[in-house]
């Protein structure tokens, strides 16, 4: 029957085709965040002093820790790809597992960071926030929107890598067919890349 051929055909999309699709998708993700970067740029030039004050509220140490955590996780996910190409299945699983742990560390840090701000009533719509100047309200609005959207991408990336890990262990991803793992790693690098932009914009430029 032609259908069975057809399904098999679509399950192993040729690797270059699959990667081209992923790269295009990553472009759209960059444009998605690009919209926020434009708003950031406009608002920063409009309220330079307020942005300066508000940015001092952010904890550079936690931000820097999370940057290191994500950079290391990007490395481990890349290493897992090399491992699968060299037929080291267990090493690949282990490295993805480390990546997932690091993603968890990132999210826990984020949780404490947000929790601390919220305990200080620094969240949109709070009474404290309403007393702040416009620029500071805008900074925190952007802070929550940008890091929130980024955190959502961390979660999606984590789910994707979990699926990759399960497929490696079941043998569906192997030395010949590792397109999904490659795309998962590409996505994870994007998560990392966007953070590399968010960190200086929000934490370092004061």
């Amino acid at each position, binding site marked *: 029957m032609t259908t069975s051929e057809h399904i098999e055909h*679509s399950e192993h999309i040729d690797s270059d085709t699959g990667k*081209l699709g992923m790269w295009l998708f990553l472009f*759209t993700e960059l444009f998605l965040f690009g919209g926020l970067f434009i708003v950031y740029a406009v608002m920063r030039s409009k309220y330079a002093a307020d942005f300066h004050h508000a940015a001092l509220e952010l904890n550079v140490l936690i931000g820097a820790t999370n940057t290191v955590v994500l950079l290391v996780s990007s490395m481990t996910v890349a290493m897992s790809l090399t491992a699968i190409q060299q037929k080291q299945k267990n090493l690949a699983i282990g490295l993805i597992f480390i990546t997932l742990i690091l993603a968890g560390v990132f999210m826990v840090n984020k949780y404490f960071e947000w929790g601390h701000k919220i305990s200080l009533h620094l969240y949109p719509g709070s009474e404290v926030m309403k007393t702040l100047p416009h620029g500071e309200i805008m900074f925190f609005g952007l802070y929550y929107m940008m890091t929130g959207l980024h955190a959502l991408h961390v979660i999606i990336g984590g789910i994707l890598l979990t699926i990759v890990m399960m497929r490696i262990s079941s043998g569906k991803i192997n030395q010949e067919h590792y397109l999904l793992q490659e795309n998962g790693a590409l996505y994870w690098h994007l998560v990392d890349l966007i953070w590399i932009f968010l960190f200086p914009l929000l934490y370092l430029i004061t």
Partner: protein
Amino acid sequence: MNNTSATVPLNYLNHKTGLWSWLSSTDHKRIGLLYLYSITIFFCVAAVLGLLMRIEKFAPGPTIMTAQTYNGMFTIHGIIMIFIVVIPGLAAVFGNIFLPIMIGAKDVAFPKLNLFSWYIYITGACLGLYSQFANGHSPDTGWTFYVPYSAEASSNVVIALTAAFVLGFASILTGLNFIVTIHRLRAPGMTWFRMPLFPWSLYATAWIQLLATPIVGITLLMVIAERTLQIGFFDPTLGGDPVLYQHLFWIYSHPAVYVMILPAMGVVTEIFPTFSQKPVFGYVPIVFSSLAIALVGYFVWGHHMFTSGMSYESRWFFSFLTFLVAIPSAIKVFNWLSTMYGGSVDLKPPLLYAISFIFLFTIGGFTGLTLGSLATNIQVHNTDFVVAHFHYIIFGGMGFGFFAGIHYWYPKIYGRMYNFKWANIAWGFLFIGFNILYFPLFIIGIQGMPRRYFDYDPKFQTGQMISSVGAVILVIGLIGMISNLVYHVRRGAIAPANPWHGVTLEWQIPSPPPHENFDEVPVITHGPYVFDNPHTKND
């Protein structure tokens, strides 16, 4: 169906039957038909809303509805028509059905993603419809969702915004699929410049979908955050900037106009050579004008905001680029006309629609330049002139392009032929009704009739009345056209594989096409428009 399948050769329509075989199909042709049916349903809903609005405006003062109902109607009419009907429109329907066939492929690059996109699309479409009815507060912001009003209005704006966001996602994934398909799946020998021009226009369209849609996605998310989390990106009382919203919105929504019109241009570019039996005039210029429209069209968004508060420099720059984008559009018009010149022109319904496309698109294009000039823009901004211009482009252009396409490819899609006489009469009603409906709006627009107003000064009544009469004629034409097409899906005469003597690949396979399109992979040895006609010269 089972009885007939023994006699009728297996094709994509009958190789499997049952509702689930359609809803779970990754066959690009079936997905295209799913889009066709859903788009047609939503088009009819929004067309009825449009007709009701026109009836309301037949006389000044409240006629059949309240002002608030009217506000909801023009908003939902806009949201459905723009986001659910014309943006997916030609690309999702004819692109899905014919792009793989025309480049000699078995399917798109990611068939499962293609089906998934349709489900996303349907989710967004249902959300859009739901926003009209939930709690009896249909959104009243207009399809542009301008802040600060959209941040404050008590109607279902969040649902409508979410709908637009979800639909944008479907659009991105379709564009992505098409780009990869064109890059990777062309048949052996089909070089870029041996590709037919409809795939080329889809290629340009797909890049706009991919690069512009995320911007509106994040913008809509920011308005949602503004309403639900009280983050004031665009609300001036919280320090936000409403003009910034307009920029971000039009960065997508102007290129979106080209997402609508480029595939329509691609369709008529296929029709003119076929019905003139003559190679398309100026293949390469048409290719590059498509790409130029996509590229320049990305940078003209500011012309929607000439009166919103922009620096003089930005205004003349956007105005200049707007005039620039008219050049590739005009190149295409010249090419279409020159394609017909000296050919053996056969005035069948598809060509009739394609010629009316040129006529209406040209009127829409020229009035676009009126709007793109800084001085005249101030006079006609936000008047019915804009409404008329817009409908000449979108309905007269994209709509008639779609009608041309469906009449052109109908025999290929269903293996049956519709009734020509019926189609011609319906075309007459559509074309005449269209002009009676929209042309008076140019005039009362120049006289100062604002758009989106429920009521009007009695001095505009003549124009409004004529326009409303046109709406009724147009709807009669629509009913005639759709019933002709629907009726003949099962009852029409059996169509041959190549009823129009077309030369592109879709005409070289049986009608309807087999499930996997080609029995053997086609090998391409020449350009797409080579005719055997001894009276005309081939390239």
